[in-house]
């Protein structure tokens, strides 16, 4: 069975013209999101995530390449896209002097949702977002997490098939962040909505069906979270050396240590063979009078994978 493609981009490029000449923000992106997927565009600030989302939505003019949503070209069919896509921009703020209910009706009217449909959908969406008890509260008086939930509910008022969320959990505390992701899970599970979300949080990758890791305008990996993590070769040892500065060069020089990352006072060392290398590291360090406390194998997270992929890419481009 062929999966239907909801969002697609081929060779997508965006260069901004500035005083200093052409600045590339997106350097050729190929991306396909199947219907019903939750795709995470993950990367640090300045990687080009927002530009990519805005190009696909047709809010920015692309320099080269192609992109479409639900088969509609981003540049040529903006109205078809607008009617079928919900979007929360990064700096999006709801009118603070309107109540929760007024915000909902306002966005419904903007989207041309009929009165009858509003009467049906608004209570459902408020229930979904857990905002039913707060319909009369001014949006400006909601907590950060509740504001984000209201923004999500507003973006769903016209029953879009696709939603694009630009850093929806930025500055939201951990409890609200988890609740927000649970809502996205429900949306995927019960309404089969296709979700494209971009985020600087590496751990949010785990909540996506597939992720694209973005760095300096390029997608450096695109796969399921598990497969991305599996790309890092070897297994990961974590320990706290008693003398960090002296331990680092010793470990770096060891054979079989494919990657060494500092982690606070700890070292993360990727090794080809744990049974062989763990005692080797311990004896190399202890011969220099350095103890390694709490040495154990841990599972590589998205963050370690990201660092490895970025370093590998810069090594490859130097070679």
């Amino acid at each position, binding site marked *: 069975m062929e999966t239907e493609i909801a969002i697609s981009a081929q060779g997508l490029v965006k260069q901004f013209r500035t005083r200093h000449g052409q600045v590339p923000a997106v350097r050729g992106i190929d991306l396909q999101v199947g219907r019903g997927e939750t795709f995470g565009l993950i990367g640090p600030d300045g*990687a080009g995530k927002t530009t990519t989302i805005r190009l696909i939505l047709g809010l920015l003019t692309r320099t080269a390449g192609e992109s479409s949503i639900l088969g509609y070209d981003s540049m040529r069919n903006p109205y078809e896209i607008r009617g079928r896509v919900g979007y929360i921009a990064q700096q999006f703020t709801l009118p603070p002097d309107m109540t929760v209910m007024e915000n909902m009706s306002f966005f419904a009217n903007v989207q041309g949702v009929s009165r009858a449909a509003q009467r049906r959908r608004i209570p459902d969406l408020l229930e979904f977002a857990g905002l039913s008890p707060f319909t009369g509260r001014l949006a400006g008086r909601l907590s950060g997490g509740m504001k984000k939930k209201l923004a999500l509910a507003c973006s769903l008022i016209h029953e879009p098939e696709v939603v694009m969320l630009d850093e929806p959990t930025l500055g939201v505390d*951990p409890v609200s962040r988890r609740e927000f992701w649970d809502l996205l*899970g429900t949306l995927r*599970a019960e309404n089969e909505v296709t979700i494209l979300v971009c985020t600087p949080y590496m751990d949010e990758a785990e*909540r996506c069906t597939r992720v694209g890791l973005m760095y300096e305008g390029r997608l450096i990996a695109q796969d399921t979270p*598990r497969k991305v993590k599996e790309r890092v070769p070897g297994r990961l040892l974590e320990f706290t050396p008693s003398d960090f500065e002296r331990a680092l060069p010793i470990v770096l020089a060891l054979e079989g240590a494919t990657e060494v990352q500092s982690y606070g006072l700890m070292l993360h060392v990727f090794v080809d063979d744990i049974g062989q290398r763990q005692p080797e590291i311990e004896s190399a360090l202890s011969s220099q009078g350095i103890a390694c406390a709490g040495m154990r194998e841990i599972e590589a997270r998205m*963050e370690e994978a990201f660092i490895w992929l970025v370093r590998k890419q810069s090594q490859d481009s130097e070679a």
Partner: protein
Amino acid sequence: MSDYTIEAIELTKRFGDFTAVDKVSFGVKQGEVYGWLGPNGAGKTTTIRMLLGLLTITEGQAWVLGYDPQRQAKEMQAHVGYMSQLFTLYNDLTARENIRFYGQAYGLSRSALRRRQAEIIEMAGLRGRQNLLTANLSGGWKQRLALGCAIVHRPQVLFLDEPTAGVDPISRRHFWDLIYAMAKEGVTVMVTTHYMDEAELCQRVGFISEGRLIALDSPDRLKQTQMRGQVLEIACDDPALAVSALRATGAFQEVALYGALVHAVAADVHSLKPEIQRVLQQAGIGLQTMDLIAPSLEDVFISSVRAARRRPEPAG
């Protein structure tokens, strides 16, 4: 003389009827990197501001380097650095000019400032970029420049408020390398954050919720002692349907969709495995694997916060 560089005893801040910080006690030793993890509005910044002498203390006491921030703020501030999440670097000044500006504000002499400028540019890896406008520096550089400006006067205590928000993981590791290099030289660091990634890097972490300190230990120990349940990762044919089927049983503290996987949390989740098998079978969902996974610091934090919210207010 106390053993602690930063100490708080039953520190309390009330704004009218609202208690922002509620009888919080802790101590931070010299050279320690101590984290405070909590949601927005939990009282993190209020605490830092009391310790900095910027807000009056309603009840309780605090000492920083032996100074009372209420009465000796001026003397104390010469030895304390603060990098706020709203840290304002001047975008229209160069990196070097920003350092000079903060150095002058702290009253450094001309020659001391020249030396310090060179050191900070070196430390922050800004060599070659020192004459660029700050506006043109990327997130990681700006963050390290902000740190450099906060320590231009060589403080013995450093307060950091969400120091690496939005910075890429490589820059964040670099930033923390700098923090630990300072800690090794004896600087005491207190970090407030709602980012798990930052909290994981601290030697000890306090969980704060609704103004109260609900747990305090090393990240490792917190994971062992504070998790009120185990996390089971389930791989099955229809994860979305599985979530609603498992939620309907009411047997779990939490059931959530993680990409193509389902996470179910319960006190003794192992004993619920047969129940899970039965529920999924009944719903016609093929089950592939069920594995106990180590909880993340975020799992532990959320579990602690929820438990604290269920607990009644302490008497008195």
